[in-house]
């Protein structure tokens, strides 16, 4: 019965979800989000400490031997969904979904032992730089170079879009070393590292430019090198995309819920707005996309938690990211539209979701890019196993 039971939540998972929901309802109101957005740091450090130290959210999918809870991406995505619902401003995506995944998938045992316990207990923030521009892992879009010197290394490169890059304490940086890929761990305040936070539209998530200019690091900053780094970072990016999709799902659901509440109260032409069939159908369309995205997230989380091979994992990430990005943008757009005049005011919340929906739609793979990834697997020579299987079975 595992096939089926897998899609139902067990009692522990339900409890995780419900307690996260309750915690955030209390601690992450619209007012709290707006305060965090306007703060210099971009998030509330006290709330972040509670999440890490008290609630153990950062520890969720980190193995027990590294101080984690040893749970899976199923539990992590349940948490991300709730964080997305409430627009929580925090370094969770950067620290836990990206950096911890990179350590687990590409960081080597020593790096894991060094950093994961501190991440797990919320004591260390971290991030992962992925490319010169954009936030996708493409080795060919990486120009950062490492050179051995004085028993250590010197790094030179630039990364235009690093999530939470200005404040993260630990920076994971890929670089070319003697023609092969390597992953380095840098303290954020290493000499030669210049970090500049961007002004951006989605203030619920900060992005920084990081320039690494002749930054000297000790030998043990090199966590791993060789072909496994490319694969590991691809896997880490896919896992982060699945987590981000869960966050987007939560945002989409909240857009629908806000709209249902507003249209039930608002009266026009002598009727509550929610009694118009056009409004009803729009809300139904929102739900269709949300539930489709939810199924995609649930499925992808199960694949991720089962340790799928890389090809399958990347296709899973493509599918879930495309669906969740599309659902979130659609729902945010419709929330604004169906709120009418107040929908595009600063005071009401739909605009906050809308801005995050657009920003997130570009992260870790655009919708178009994800469709092409699936198409390549289906259509191109040497296509990946999963998709090609389909045709072999039916040829």
């Amino acid at each position, binding site marked *: 019965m595992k096939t089926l039971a897998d899609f139902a939540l067990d009692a522990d998972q339900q409890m995780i979800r419900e307690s996260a929901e309750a915690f955030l309802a209390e601690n992450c109101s619209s007012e709290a989000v707006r305060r965090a957005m306007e703060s210099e740091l971009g998030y509330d450090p006290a709330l972040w400490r509670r999440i890490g130290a008290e609630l153990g959210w950062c520890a969720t999918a980190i193995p027990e031997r590294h101080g984690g809870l040893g749970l899976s991406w199923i539990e992590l995505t349940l948490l991300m969904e709730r964080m997305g619902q409430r627009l929580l401003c925090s370094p969770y995506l950067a620290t836990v979904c990206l950096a911890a995944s990179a350590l687990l998938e590409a960081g080597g045992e020593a790096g894991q032992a060094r950093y994961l316990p501190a991440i797990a207990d919320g004591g260390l923030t971290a991030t992962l730089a992925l490319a010169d521009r954009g936030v996708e892992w493409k080795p060919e879009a990486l120009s950062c170079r490492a050179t051995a010197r004085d028993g250590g290394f010197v790094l030179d490169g630039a990364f235009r879009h690093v999530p939470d890059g200005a404040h993260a304490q630990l920076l994971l940086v890929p670089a070319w070393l003697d023609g092969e890929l390597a992953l380095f761990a840098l303290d954020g305040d290493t000499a030669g590292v210049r970090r500049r936070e961007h002004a951006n539209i989605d203030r619920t998530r900060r992005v920084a430019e990081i320039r690494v200019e002749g930054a000297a690091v000790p030998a043990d900053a090199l966590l791993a090198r060789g072909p496994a780094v490319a694969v590991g970072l691809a896997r880490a990016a896919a896992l982060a995309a699945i987590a981000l999709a869960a966050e987007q799902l939560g945002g989409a659901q909240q857009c629908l819920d806000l709209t249902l509440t507003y249209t039930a109260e608002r009266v026009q032409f002598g009727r509550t707005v929610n009694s118009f069939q056009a409004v009803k159908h729009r809300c139904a369309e929102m*739900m269709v996309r949300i539930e*489709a995205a939810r199924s995609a997230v649930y499925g992808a989380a*199960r694949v991720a938690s089962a340790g799928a091979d890389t090809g399958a994992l990347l296709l899973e990430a493509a599918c879930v990211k495309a669906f969740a990005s599309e659902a979130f943008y659609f729902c945010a757009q419709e929330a604004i539209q169906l709120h009418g005049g107040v929908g595009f005011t600063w005071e009401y919340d739909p605009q906050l979701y809308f801005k995050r929906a657009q920003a997130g739609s570009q992260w870790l793979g655009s919708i178009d890019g994800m469709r092409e990834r699936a198409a390549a697997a289906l259509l191109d020579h040497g296509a990946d196993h999963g998709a090609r299987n389909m045709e072999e079975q039916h040829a």
Partner: protein
Amino acid sequence: MHNEPHIDVSSPDQAFRAEVAQWMATHLTGKFACLRHRGGAGDEDAYPELRKEWAQLLARDGWNCVGWPEQYGGRGLSVARQIIFHEEYARAGGPGHMGHLGETLLGPTLIAYGSEEQKRRFLPGIVAGTEYWCQGYSEPGAGSDLANVQTRARRDPASGEWIIDGQKVWTSLAHESQWIFVVARCEPGSRGHAGLIFLLVPLAQPGVEVRPIRQITGSCEFNEVFFDGARTGAQNVVGAPGQGWKVAMALLGFERGLSWIGMQTHFEHQLALICKAARESGSDRDPAIRARIGQAWMGLKVMHYNTLRTLSGGDDGSLSREAYIIKYYWSNWHRDLGKLAMDAMGADGDILIDDFSRTRLQQVFLFSRSDTIVAGTNEIQLNIIAERALGMPREARPQTQEKAAP
């Protein structure tokens, strides 16, 4: 489904999967080989006699009605095993089941609501693949408005039989069936859900006429069925007279679930045919076609997950949110797939040649037009989602309509 979750399936299930696959590999051969991938939606009139024979072969080895309790001739398989069965059946190209209305709708309804006599009389024919059923729900004047049934049933005081007058429409396979289940109005003057009766009616009688309806495809997948003093015995009422709505709704409740698994495997086959056609036409290099193929594949994957979620009983055991969307989702996905198939073939899409992999796609294009209409139009589906799943107000039924100035 390819790329299915790497789930730790216990070995008895694996063995069962192999057993099904083996049976299919052994039997869907020889004279049955031409049935591979045939008889799905829009292709329902393919090889009817041979498919009945196939059904009887399945029955011989116990592969019909695998989810029914053993006491009624089924295998009593768990839901997990049923999924495996349907997956392997469809993966092997198993043809659409001529008896699916009996197996998936009427049988479960009789098991739940039928009398012992009805179960004894009707279940064995369904299991054996010897007696076939069609569905008498829709009427010409009612369309999606099932509560507006006009077909009348009155009791003959002499014989106790029920006499039926009226007309049903969109009955698929009526010309291949022996029986029809009919929702009719048995209390004159009643309206809406009240006063209905659920009757089992033999088709081979003078009072019943079956007329095929020619479809957009040029073929006749559906029929009209005319009742003019048709008769059925008193023992053929399911539930009580006047309580037909309850039975009719319960029957529709059986519509969802496992049959989607097989349907999706057919869809997967169609998508594979599109990939093949795109390679042949060169449109596999066209970015817009590629994007749509990628999107279609992802949509199918989501549909599969959505089904597994539904079959898992949802998050909390109540009627789940994902179950509300599935008809709307799959029917629109499939309609889009038909369009994609044609666009992937380019100008050749319009040309009919003798290649089933091509004509199948053309059939999908045309026939999928009905997907978003039958069994609740898109508009009805969205109403249901808004009203039942989201709790929004019901559509008003105004007493009088205001007419706009032209």
